[in-house]
């Protein structure tokens, strides 16, 4: 028994370290003075830490505006995705109707279609529609990519809120809409917030579509990718950039950790 427990703990420790260690290293790199990063022998733990590397990255041309762009795109994506998927999710959770399974399957199937396939023809179309190189254009694609996730999450959230309560409100004389707004919505709110946060991560992290669809109005990943490919950005820029992109994601995953399994588990069924 103790041997088995020992084996379990050491396996967990090794795997946990394998996941956490690279994160530790990039954090270390982001706070290491520039000259230490290029010197040999290469010090692992620098004698002093500095904010210069991060500040260099943040002050580089385009970083702040594109960070703001990323936030705006993610915000618009959340708004659009919820506007579209919330009614669909509610319908899938609350109504039995003919073709319900087909609807669910069709929404799931869209998850199979890669961003790669959508971005290039959409870039051509967006040039014609005046959406190329606009933040709205990027968030339109991000919305298409996140709808399958958001719909399934919202469905599961509404399934989790008992329909009896909504009915009880209606027998007490509220309309269906009022019952929804006053009873169901407040109870669904935490789950919906988690879904919104997850959508934020999807959009914040998306590289390919954002790179293809923008030229001057880059989002942060598109800017970093472009400065790596086209401008050969220096190493300290890359490390600080990597760290800068990871931090919000880490915080967000921590905030929604309770919902992680629901997000993916249900998404998958």
């Amino acid at each position, binding site marked *: 028994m103790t041997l088995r427990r020992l084996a*379990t703990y050491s*396996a*967990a420790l090794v*795997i*946990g370290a*394998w996941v*956490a260690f*690279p*994160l530790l*290293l*990039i954090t270390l*790199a982001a706070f290491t003075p520039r000259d230490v990063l290029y*010197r040999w*022998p*290469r010090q*692992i733990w620098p004698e002093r830490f500095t904010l210069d590397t991060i500040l260099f990255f943040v002050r580089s041309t385009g970083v702040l505006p594109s960070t703001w762009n990323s936030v705006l795109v993610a915000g618009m994506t959340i708004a659009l995705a919820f*506007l*579209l998927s919330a*009614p669909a999710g509610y*319908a*899938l959770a*609350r*109504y*039995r109707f003919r073709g319900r399974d087909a609807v669910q399957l069709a*929404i799931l199937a869209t*998850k*199979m*279609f890669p961003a*790669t*396939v*959508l971005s*290039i*023809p959409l*870039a051509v*179309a967006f040039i014609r529609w005046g959406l190329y190189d606009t933040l709205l254009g990027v968030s339109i694609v991000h919305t298409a990519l996140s*709808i399958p996730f958001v719909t399934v999450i919202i469905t599961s959230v509404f399934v989790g809120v008992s329909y009896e309560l909504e009915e009880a409100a209606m027998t007490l004389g509220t309309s269906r809409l009022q019952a929804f707004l006053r009873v169901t919505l407040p109870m669904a709110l935490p789950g919906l917030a988690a879904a919104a946060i997850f959508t934020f*991560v999807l959009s914040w*992290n998306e*590289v*390919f579509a954002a*790179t*293809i669809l923008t030229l001057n109005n880059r989002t942060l*990943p598109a800017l*970093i*990718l472009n400065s*790596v*490919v086209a401008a050969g950005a220096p*190493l300290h820029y890359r*490390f600080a950039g*990597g760290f800068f*992109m*990871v931090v919000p994601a880490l915080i967000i*995953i921590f905030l929604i*950790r309770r919902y*992680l*399994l629901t997000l*993916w*588990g*249900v998404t*998958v069924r």
Partner: protein
Amino acid sequence: MADAERTRASPRARDWTPYLLVLPTFAYLGIFFVYPMAQAVWLSLTDPHGQLTLEHFRRMVGDLYFSQAIRYTLLITAVAVPLQVGLGLVIALLVNTRFRGHSLFLYVCAVPIGISDLAAGLIWLSIFTERGYLNAFLGAAGLLQQPLTFLTYERPEWLLGAIILTEVWRATAIVMVILVAGLQLIPKDYLETAQVFGAGRWQTARHVLLPLLKPSLQTALIIRTILAFQLFATVITLAGRLVPVLAGESYFWYSLYRSPQVASAYAVLILGLSSAITWVYLRLLRQREVEATA
């Protein structure tokens, strides 16, 4: 029961409500999924005058990078995806033993879900680059006098190894979460029954858990394989174009050579590969099911 009552109680007029509620999503997906997909096929198969042509596919296949891109994409997928599923399964089974601290372990292992392929590539670049942490550790251990250059075209095995490690590090988390969720759906009585009949831990896992976990494993396999075909930023950050991959070539043809047509040809190829592999998986896994019941 509640459902039945609801349908009975629902007046005729309400029957259209669910369809109306679903409509916006469908309209949107129609415009921004179906249309671009058709458009990709159209772009890759027509010339500027709207005539059908195979010229773009010919240019794609004739390109020096093409056969490499196919080979590397398939190779990385074939190595990385089984590793991701294997490691994901190990983590999921560990979490499922509910040892003390398993929720912290689960959280740590789930963290890469929030990390993009771009950021993951940059993180592992800090390890594998010439003045990176790998050389630093080897140097500190006294194993190296001069730093080694790992990420160079002279060492394709290191380039591939770095990409595969990064992909395993980043994407195992998704597999793991899918499998943990799948394990939670398995009723506890099954395991208790297995124990009552004297099955050991290993036997229970092999003969009870794994078969019941098959739908989740299937989903994880399909999702990971399709996403591996889209491998892009990890490769770009670690290897540039030294290791060409399909999505990367699509990007280069679009933004470097300004040819949306050839880029679309690549996109269509990725789409074809994704559909083919999904079909193969579904087919293979179903066949085995039939054999098992026969």
